[in-house]
């Protein structure tokens, strides 16, 4: 029986979350195409260079705030219900988080899109990092706050559903997918405290004119308290799919359930006390705090390196089950014509490359070379832009039939889609990385200056621009293919046969091989909180010692 027949309300909730996520993906992706053509100079006819920053804000907010949060909320909703095999604790809470997220999205998007029209007194050209004293319309901050609150409500529903399950199943190990959802949400609750404090205590009153100024350094610090762990909030749902769905799609089983739990706990502990690595080059923060954040960041490599091992080992096991052999010959036995498998695997492969450029970002001293250059978006288009986004799209090819009861349509387009995305990202990202090394800045409409030219190390600046523009076009084509498949499938009538099943085989090494203390979420949360207090209390105290709002800057509306 498909998920939709067993849990019709939960399937609908996930479907609608995905619907909003994909609408945000469509608009944000179109903005991405406009940027790729504009900043490379390939075509500047869509918007003026001043409006480029409206496009850039929309691209960032719609993709990394709206698309991610709606997709994750819907995916986790499915993961908890499927792995606990029981309905949600509260349907009403399910509706509440969905509409809270939606209201926040509408408010924030209205403020951003208002920037295109002079006649509309709204704008929010502050990019997704919204560093004050650049100021957006209050709708922007209120919308962002509601998106966070909506995600908290969604998390509450997962926890309440788990508690109901626990009452019926005392003494059992937490099912793996639920374990992953709960640890990710704990990480999310902890890290969003930073941005919630920034927005609710400072930016909303400031944008409404209730307080006269805000401290730019304190605001940045609170933002990055949230701004690094948020990348794990995007990544861990992809890991959930890599650990639990990908082994099945390759014809095998997960290698090790205990190690998967250890990996998620390491992320819970280490994700938040790392934010200063986004502020290596900020004045006003002593070097020692930056060094502590760097050490924590480097140790965060461990769970990702462990994941690389487990994922490859699980795929290889699957390939050998299907008759693959040889040192590398088993690769040929994998279902490369299954769009879900191909997309998720290519996303994982690309994440390996993104992981390596991330290791370079993490190094305090080499960060001078790449900070705020095009290298950085080159890096995160491999992580959130592929490891997360391509995994999400590919998983949809597998999951959508189960939550809709409809067989995937336009299968040819679906098979091509991951390869188109992969090729586009290879072109765009390699060129962005290399342009960054030449010093080309990120976040600018026209990275060309009258007084000087950038000196490319390998290749030429013109060649890099061409690759970025072409890559952007291919990525947009990949997006259109994806949206066409989802749209046609959604509009199709119900089918008897789905060609996919939701059963997930147990791990080769199951949870019984791991100590029960791994499931003691209360303990691990306390350790995570303690680490955050150790890392952040001293610098935050020194920043607010001169007064919460000092040095205070009056708003500069944009």
């Amino acid at each position, binding site marked *: 029986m498909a998920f939709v027949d067993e849990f019709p309300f939960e399937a609908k909730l996930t479907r609608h979350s995905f619907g909003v996520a994909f609408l945000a993906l469509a608009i944000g992706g179109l903005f991405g195409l406009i940027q790729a053509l504009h900043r490379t100079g390939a075509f500047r006819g869509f918007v003026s260079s*001043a409006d480029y*920053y409206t496009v850039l804000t929309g691209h960032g907010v719609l993709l990394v705030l709206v698309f991610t949060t709606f997709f994750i909320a819907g995916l986790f909703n499915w993961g908890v219900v499927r792995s606990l095999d029981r309905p949600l604790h509260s349907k009403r809470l399910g509706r509440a988080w969905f509409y809270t997220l939606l209201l926040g999205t509408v408010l924030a998007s209205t403020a951003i899109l208002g920037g295109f029209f002079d006649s509309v007194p709204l704008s929010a*050209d502050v990019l997704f990092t919204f*560093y004050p*004293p*650049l100021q957006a319309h209050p709708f922007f901050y209120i919308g962002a706050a509601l998106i966070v609150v909506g995600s908290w409500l969604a998390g509450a529903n997962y926890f309440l559903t788990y508690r109901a399950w626990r009452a019926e199943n005392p003494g059992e190990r937490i099912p793996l997918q639920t374990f992953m959802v709960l640890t990710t949400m704990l990480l999310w609750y902890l890290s969003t405290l930073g941005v919630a404090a920034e927005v609710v205590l400072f930016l909303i009153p400031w944008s409404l004119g209730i307080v006269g100024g805000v401290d*730019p*350094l304190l605001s*940045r610090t609170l933002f990055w308290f949230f701004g690094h762990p948020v990348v794990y909030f995007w990544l861990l749902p992809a890991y959930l799919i890599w650990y639990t769905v990908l082994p099945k799609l390759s014809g095998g089983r997960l*290698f*090790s359930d*205990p*190690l998967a739990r250890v990996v998620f706990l390491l992320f819970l502990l280490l994700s938040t006390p790392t934010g200063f690595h986004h*502020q*290596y*080059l*900020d*004045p*006003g*923060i*002593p*070097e020692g705090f930056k*060094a502590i954040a*760097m050490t924590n960041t*480097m140790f965060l*490599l*461990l769970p990702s*390196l*462990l994941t690389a*091992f*487990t994922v490859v*080992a699980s795929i290889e096991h699957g390939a050998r089950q299907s008759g693959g052999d040889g040192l590398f010959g088993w690769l040929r036995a994998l279902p490369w014509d299954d769009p879900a498998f191909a997309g998720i695997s290519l996303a994982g492969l690309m994440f390996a490359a993104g992981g390596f450029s991330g290791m370079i970002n*993490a*190094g*305090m*001293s*080499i960060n*001078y*070379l790449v*900070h*705020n250059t095009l290298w950085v978006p080159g890096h995160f288009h491999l992580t959130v832009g592929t490891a997360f986004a391509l995994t999400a799209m590919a998983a949809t090819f597998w999951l959508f039939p189960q939550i809709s009861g409809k067989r995937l349509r336009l299968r040819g387009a679906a098979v091509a889609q991951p390869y188109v995305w992969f090729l586009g990202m290879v072109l765009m990202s390699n060129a962005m990385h290399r342009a960054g090394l*030449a*010093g080309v*800045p990120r*976040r600018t*409409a*026209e990275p060309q*200056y009258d*007084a*000087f030219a*950038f*000196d490319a190390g390998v290749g030429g600046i013109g060649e890099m621009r061409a690759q970025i523009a072409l890559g952007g076009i291919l990525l947009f084509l990949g997006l259109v293919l994806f949206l066409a498949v989802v749209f046609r499938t959604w509009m199709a009538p119900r089918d008897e046969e789905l060609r996919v099943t939701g059963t997930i085989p147990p791990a080769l*090494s199951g949870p019984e091989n*791991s*100590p029960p203390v791994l499931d003691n979420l209360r303990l691990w949360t306390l350790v995570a909180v303690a680490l955050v207090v150790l890392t952040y209390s001293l610098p935050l105290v020194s920043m607010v010692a001169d007064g919460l709002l*000092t*040095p205070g*800057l009056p708003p*500069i509306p*944009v």
Partner: protein
Amino acid sequence: MEIHRYERAWLAASLVLIVLFIGTVAYGALGPSVAMVDAEGGTVDPAALDDHPRFSDPGVYQTGEDEYAAYVIARRFAFQPGSTDPIRVPEGSTVTFYITSPDVVHGFSLAGTNVNTMVLPGQVTKVTVDFEETGEYGVVCHEYCGEAHHEMAGTLVVVPSGEFDLPEERDVSGGGS
């Protein structure tokens, strides 16, 4: 807890890699003495730069033999000095930059080098750079600062030491020359 032996080896190799990475940065700090931008520049009232002894007249000051201080204001949408007039320093000099902003967050980087920092209103960014050879660098604002952000740039020129001249009032080294 059961861990496969290949996985154990991978775990050990990963830990070695991590320790090596941290080691390279520690070496960079202790050996070639790569210093991080930190709190040493102190704070300044962003609304009162005109009252500041140096930011009221930004530019290059001589502070010692081959040692200079360069006070730069990054404001929407120009570096002062840098955009209208280039920042000029002599070859073979050690220049300590003091950079701040009266309005929003900016960036300051010399294109193609590892001279790269953030500029925050209220904070003074302090970075020290050795200019060993003559040459010309682009100065880029790399943090979005508003609708004309892409026009915010400048140049820094390292001139032959014989061609470098400062007005007398800008020699604050105490010793004279």
